[in-house]
């Protein structure tokens, strides 16, 4: 008997049964919602997100600010770019890393960064997954002063930015540099964790679940020394949210 079979057989017998039975639906878990239901739920989320985007933006700004994001609300891409440039100057940044989110092109972030004298690198997959590339990518992230990303979603309930690392969006760009700037549009803001996981489930049921996901809610922090909260331990010490409200 493999250790898996033996292990599970033990569990079955601990539960007082002789064989594994497939659970039937009860009201507890969402596991029994079929693909159509999952899709419908996701559709509802998207509709709700669009319909309430003004209200959700206000909620997001407030929730994010409460938990330590420095929130900047701007009405045009130029102002967004200015904020990025100002942060680069403030931090004395020499090396900046960014993801390949569309919104960053929209605000012309490259020009904003390089205008301050910092150099800029985009996290993108070169098509080559060898060890050298991996190490290079890692080193660049650890050396960068600032990481800039767009968002895949944001969550108003909790002031959260959601990222699905993939080609063009590394895991480290929002983690290793001591400052992280996230740029988003109102249309990307979901109401709640329920909404996020409805979207994720729909992706899963259609075979498209992202390889990984990061929910980022404020700067890195710890209270392990005498219960005193200190901002910035292993992740960024300073996090900025730029909300581009061009409507």
């Amino acid at each position, binding site marked *: 008997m493999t*250790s*898996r079979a*033996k*292990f*599970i057989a*033990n*569990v*079955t*017998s*601990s*539960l*007082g049964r002789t064989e*594994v039975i*497939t659970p039937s639906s009860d009201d*507890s*878990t*969402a*596991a029994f919602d079929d693909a159509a239901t999952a899709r419908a739920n996701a559709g509802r989320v998207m509709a709700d997100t669009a319909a309430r985007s003004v209200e959700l933006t206000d909620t997001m700004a407030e*929730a994010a600010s409460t*938990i330590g994001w420095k929130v900047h609300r701007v009405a045009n891409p130029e102002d967004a770019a200015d904020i990025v440039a100002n942060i680069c100057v403030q931090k004395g940044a020499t090396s900046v890393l960014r993801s390949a989110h569309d919104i960053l092109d929209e605000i012309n972030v490259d020009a904003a960064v390089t205008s301050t004298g910092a150099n800029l690198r985009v996290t993108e*997959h070169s098509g080559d*997954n060898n060890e050298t*590339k*991996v190490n290079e*990518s*890692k080193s660049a992230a650890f050396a960068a002063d600032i990481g800039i990303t767009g968002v895949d979603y944001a969550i108003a*309930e909790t002031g*959260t930015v959601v990222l699905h*690392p*993939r*080609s063009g969006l*590394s*895991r*480290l760009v929002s*983690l290793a540099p001591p400052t992280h700037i996230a740029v988003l549009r109102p249309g990307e803001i979901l109401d*709640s*964790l329920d909404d*996020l*996981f409805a979207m*994720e489930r729909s992706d*899963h049921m259609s075979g498209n*679940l992202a*390889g*990984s996901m*990061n*929910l*980022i*809610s404020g700067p*890195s*922090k*710890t*209270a*392990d*020394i*005498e*219960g005193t909260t*200190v901002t*910035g*331990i*292993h992740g960024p010490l300073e996090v900025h949210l730029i909300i581009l409200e061009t409507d």
Partner: protein
Amino acid sequence: MKPLTSDFRAKAAETMVDEQVLQSLEHVYTGFFKGRLEAAGNTDNWEDLREKGKAIKDHTIAHLDYYLGQLADNVEKNGGSVFFAADAAEARKYVLDLAHARDIKTVIKSKSMVSEEMALAQALIDEGIEAVETDLGEYIIQLSGETPYHLIAPAVHKSRKEVAELLDDSYVDGNPVPDATELTMMAREKLRSVFERADMSVTGVNFAVAESGSIALVTNEGNGRMSTTVPRVHVAVMGMEKIVPSIQDLSTMLRILIRSATGQRISSYVTLVNGARKSDEEEGPEEFHLVILDNGRQKLLADEQMRESLNCIRCGACLNACPVYRKVGGHAYGWVYPGPIGAIVTPVLTGLKDASNLPAASSLCGACHDACPVKINIPRMLLELRYRTAEGKTDKQERTSSMRERTVWKAWRIGMMGRKRFDVGSRLSRLFLRPLAENGWLKKAPPPISGWTSTRDFPLISSSSLRSRLNKRSKKTKS
């Protein structure tokens, strides 16, 4: 970790005279406990969420065999490997063998109580592999050679000075103690270089999602994210019960876990990982391994009275609420899990006979039950374990009650089975105790109540019972 549950009373006594630790334990109440209350108060449907969380866990545990199979299938579908470990030794061996096979030099560890059960860090170090705890609290206690003091704040008992002595190479006794920020920055710097060179990570798992083969990590520091990103091999270790069926269940579970643990609406980071890095990613581990650990949990599962304890999501809310924990501290519990949850699982996992003091050390106040995000009825299980240590019904080997104690309760029962003897016995006790009393109070009472009078005055039994007084008042009685 080797159980030292029989040291409970001695360790408890040490804590109760340690002003500095007692002060730290106060923070657990004023910080975490109050934080949870506030967060719960600000959450409209908090009680519904608790019910929902309980329902999800009840369902999962009732079908744990099915969901373990589904989880393993999906992890493998994602390209990961799954190892089912019957005990800590098997789990440890898997990780060590893997480390050797992959020529690992440096292992970074993210917080995992299960890895404490396995004493994994030390095992790696003994094999010549660098193993570094990256959660600040775990890092501190690794440096001091201690075990965790609290489920989510492992170094809560350490003073800033003690932390400086461990973290600050330049600190000398008598110097002004660096503040928490300075010390944290020192740790950040030290650990950052470790992150850069780590080739394997071992993380815990807050929730494993059966339908997708995902694991979710809840952290505030960022070490969980580092651990699932920088090394080429990622090993996640979990207790077999840490499953939820659906990815959508995470919204409920994350809400109740995080608000109950620290009072935050959400932690700085929640990380979901579906196996190793995908082909379109430039960083991330090449390999993902999930180690699923039994280590005695089958005993809890098979034990209908104790099974509910497997619903635990390891938030620490019961510790924060417990007046006993606040006085005896985490180390008194003698194993990985302190506080009320420790008092019920440790005896079953490591042996009730040696751990009999754990369920006894409770006033049954029920604060833990109130605090638990998934409504685990801890007092009920404390009473169950007391039943076993008192009368040993399930296994004679569990009985630890002395002949004297059993006699006392037998005498008590005899005394309560008739009104006359109840009255006579009471009046006789008064006769016996009266010479020791002053103004109706005893400063020193004989056994079995001598423990009381070591710190409190004890009331003298009344000269007449209520029955006789009411009869005197000519109330109508029935007999």
